[in-house]
């Protein structure tokens, strides 16, 4: 029997297994293969907060979803077309997302009575009718892997661990993926353990050969390369793009960077990445706590470096007082918040957008701070460079609100020409003639950056209220009022680009406004409703403080404004307060990104309501 090949425009695959099964690595490799093939893609890992939850249990399930296509896509996909389940727990946790008729590939070896009982299966789903609505492929992956590695002399336990590569090989065959990259990767990854490297390569090939030689799979699929803009691409995650943006900011400002930080999920990868790039004059300090992390960053900024601190929501709570000190001392400071589910410890490995009001208002006193939010993994690069621009130019702490979805998600990135990046160079104050630490640039209202070591500019700064111009301590009521307003005016006057509205027909009466990582699902949902003949406009905010100057005008053009957020309506609250617009909230806080499908329904309902 020859295998039929079907052409598809897009596919969503989800690899799911125990957190020790290597699902993240498997997904990552398939992603690289898709990227190398030229598909557009988007990924979403989903893993437990526990490093190794009890084996075979529901809390221990780790998954990686990958969406690849022959056109530009915006999200990692709502539901998988293909689910690879390595054990009963992975099946149970993920099968609800598989649509009827979807492809289900199951590692049968793990479906023992004990494992089934562990997750509450009374009968074996592979043997009853519960999976009849799917195209089920039962593959004894562990047995087959051990068999394939018999001659390597590797112990059964070690051999069995390569079963994720068997799964990858099988899927690579099904979707006509290139394999050289994965084999090269495995040999590099296990360079110090050549026998393990070979075992993984053999398992990978065994999976491929299994697909090709058995007749279990009647169909294979092809997804052609996407027509992307001309240029050189790579795959990148949000956290890596954020780290690279910081390196770029260091290069373009010609300043050293000092990152003071404390490990926290899901932000730690920014520290890991930056600590590898000391050759760009980047110092990373893993501090004793969150507060020390930002203190070190602010101390470095005071000394004339670009101080950066990275954290997640709970860390921002701890850093608030120092952010206030940076507001008062008017020093540049980049504060990265990779948001996760809250409050308190919340959902460390899940995503949420609920730190917006904390970023906006979470300090004592009138303490305005600019806020910049990236809309996708690769957008983290440009967005963080822009955040650095604002910090340096206006001498202010800037909050960068990434989140778990963009931080860990990945997509292709059109690598920029480094000469095209903005020039971020600043001038330090040097002239002692009439020097005043709190005099201001008439355009930006920024005060001079007078770093220690500059002759004749000795002065003292601190958290106490400053006298206008001289910076001396002042308790004068009029002066305090003036300084509060000056600090606010400085932030309000920050130049940010106008928000662009995506409304291809120009006939939309409904505007959907989003910010941050919801760009993908909102954009995809907007495309879908337009295809159904319903015009809708989409505006996505990178700058949340100050808002773009044209935002008020944009909002007023539409009959209805809807604001989907992964919180309980924080942006909507700000828009309603500032622009007196009757913005409608659509909110969800499940620790997961929106699905395009659900937003499609929400938008369609609103549009129908307006037309009626």
């Amino acid at each position, binding site marked *: 029997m020859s295998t039929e090949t079907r052409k598809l425009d897009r596919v969503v695959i989800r690899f799911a297994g125990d957190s020790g099964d290597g699902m993240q690595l498997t997904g990552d490799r398939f992603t690289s293969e898709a990227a190398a093939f030229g598909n557009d893609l988007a990924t979403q890992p989903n893993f437990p907060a526990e490093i190794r939850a009890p084996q075979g249990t529901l809390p221990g399930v780790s998954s990686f979803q990958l969406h690849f296509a022959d056109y530009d896509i915006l999200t990692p996909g709502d539901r998988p077309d293909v689910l690879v389940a390595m054990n009963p727990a992975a099946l149970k946790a993920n099968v609800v997302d598989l649509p009827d008729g979807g492809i289900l590939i199951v590692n049968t070896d793990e479906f023992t009575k004990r494992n089934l009982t562990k997750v509450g299966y009374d009968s074996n789903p592979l043997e009853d009718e519960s999976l009849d609505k799917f195209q089920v492929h039962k593959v004894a992956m562990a047995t087959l892997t051990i068999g394939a590695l018999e001659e390597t002399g590797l112990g059964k336990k070690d051999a069995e661990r390569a079963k994720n590569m068997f799964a990858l090989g099988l899927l690579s065959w099904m979707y006509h993926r290139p394999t050289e990259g994965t084999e090269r990767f495995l040999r590099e990854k296990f360079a110090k353990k050549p026998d393990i490297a070979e075992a993984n390569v053999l398992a990978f090939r065994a999976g491929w050969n299994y697909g090709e030689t058995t007749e279990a799979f009647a169909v294979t699929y092809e997804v052609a390369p996407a027509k992307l803009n001309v240029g050189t691409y790579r795959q990148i995650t949000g956290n890596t793009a954020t780290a690279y943006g910081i390196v770029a900011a260091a290069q373009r400002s010609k300043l050293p960077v000092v990152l003071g930080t404390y490990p926290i999920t899901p932000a730690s990868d920014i520290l890991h990445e930056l600590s590898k790039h000391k050759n760009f004059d980047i110092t990373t300090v893993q501090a004793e706590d969150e507060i020390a992390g930002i203190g070190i960053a602010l101390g470095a900024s005071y000394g004339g470096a670009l101080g950066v601190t990275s954290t997640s929501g709970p860390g921002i709570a701890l850093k608030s007082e120092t952010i206030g000190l940076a507001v008062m001392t008017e020093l540049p400071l980049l504060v990265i918040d990779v948001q996760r589910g809250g409050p308190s410890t919340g959902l460390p490995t899940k995503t949420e957008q609920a730190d917006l009001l904390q970023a906006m208002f979470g300090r004592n006193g009138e303490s305005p701070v600019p806020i910049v939010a990236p809309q996708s993994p690769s957008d983290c690069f440009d967005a963080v460079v822009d955040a650095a621009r604002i910090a340096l130019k206006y001498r202010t702490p800037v909050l960068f609100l990434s989140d778990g979805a963009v931080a860990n998600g990945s997509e292709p990135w059109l*690598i920029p020409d480094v000469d095209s990046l903005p020039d971020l160079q600043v001038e330090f104050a040097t002239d002692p003639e009439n020097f005043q630490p709190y005099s201001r640039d008439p355009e930006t209202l920024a005060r001079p950056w007078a770093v220690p*070591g500059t002759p004749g500019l000795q*002065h003292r700064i601190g958290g106490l209220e400053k006298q206008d111009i001289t910076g001396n301590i002042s308790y004068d009521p009029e002066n305090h009022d003036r300084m509060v307003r000056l600090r606010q005016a400085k932030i309000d006057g920050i130049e940010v680009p106008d928000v662009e509205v995506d409304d291809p027909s120009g006939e939309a009466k409904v505007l959907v406004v989003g910010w941050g990582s919801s760009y993908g699902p909102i954009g995809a949902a907007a495309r879908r409703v337009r295809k159904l003949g319903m015009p809708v406009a989409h505006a996505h905010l990178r700058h949340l403080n100050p808002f773009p100057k044209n935002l008020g005008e944009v909002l007023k053009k539409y009959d209805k404004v809807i604001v989907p957020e992964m919180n309980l309506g924080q942006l909507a609250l700000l828009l309603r307060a500032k622009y007196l617009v009757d913005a409608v909230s659509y909110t969800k806080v499940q620790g997961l990104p929106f699905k395009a499908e659900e937003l499609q329904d929400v938008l369609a309902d609103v549009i129908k309501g307006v037309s009626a």
Partner: protein
Amino acid sequence: MTAIDLGIPGLTGVPTTDEKQTARDYKSDQEVRWCPGCGDYIVLNTMQSFLPSLGLKRENIVFVSGIGCSSRFPYYMNTYGMHSIHGRAPAIATGLAVARPDLSVWVVTGDGDALSIGGNHLIHTLRRNVNLKILLFNNRIYGLTKGQYSPTSEEGKVTKSTPLGSLDHPFNPVSLALGAEASFVGRALDSDKAGLTSVLRQAAEHRGSALVEIYQNCPIFNDGAFDVLKDADEAQRRIINVVDGEPIRFGREGEYCVIREGFGLAVAKSADVDASDIVIHDASDLNLSFALSRLSTQDLTHTVTGVFRRADRPTYDDSARAQVNEAKATKAADLSKLLHGKDTWTVVG
């Protein structure tokens, strides 16, 4: 940011000047606003008199403080300064020291600032051995908040917040610092200008974290806390001033001494012991330094002053710079190469 070798390890890299400086050069134009009789005045004057002798460029000296009475110190120094937030001065100063090898960075803090709200930063700064000089003004009371007990107040102390007496067991700041393996720890009395100057000088010359505890009188909320150490007769019996390499004897005629006892040290009368049993201070010996710190008691029966410990070990900031410099020397800062990474693909039109 030129690096100049003074031959003084603690100040290597900090630019010097040939211009003659006086204490007046270090006074800022701000009115000093401590209470009359506050020990902080004496420390400030001592510092302003001492700094000119280092011959550093004034603009390369920075004072960073936290919150509390003593933390107003930077405003009164005509150097660079930051009056930061409660307890965080060591962290901010660490960032500054890491970024700038050409600065002499001083931290001014108090018993509440350093040992209560900022205790974590203090021990970690000392453990890392960041090249900072930390002056801990210990008056055993909260002054700025008007008279609550502090982490160095004696057990049972009656204050505004402890009308029935404090339940807290106090820190011995020198023991705490030595427990964190601080590379330099000293103690001095505010009223002892010569002793304080000597410890400050050694601290300045030391490369690494230097903690100097200064017993400082608060005339408003804890007046006379250290009076027994300031009374000439009492002081003779109580103050054990240690000097590296010298036998530890004290009293008017050296009639008291320190000997080994069990795992620690004890005070004895010199006449009662063999001269060879008198301990010779070795500031590089952590165990000895710690044992010395234990001789100081809450009730000030004995108080050890001078330099407890002075030992060489790599500083955090020097090591951090060495890693960066090594990376810069061995790998070009090629941003385009970094952004491209290992795996790219090209889309052609």
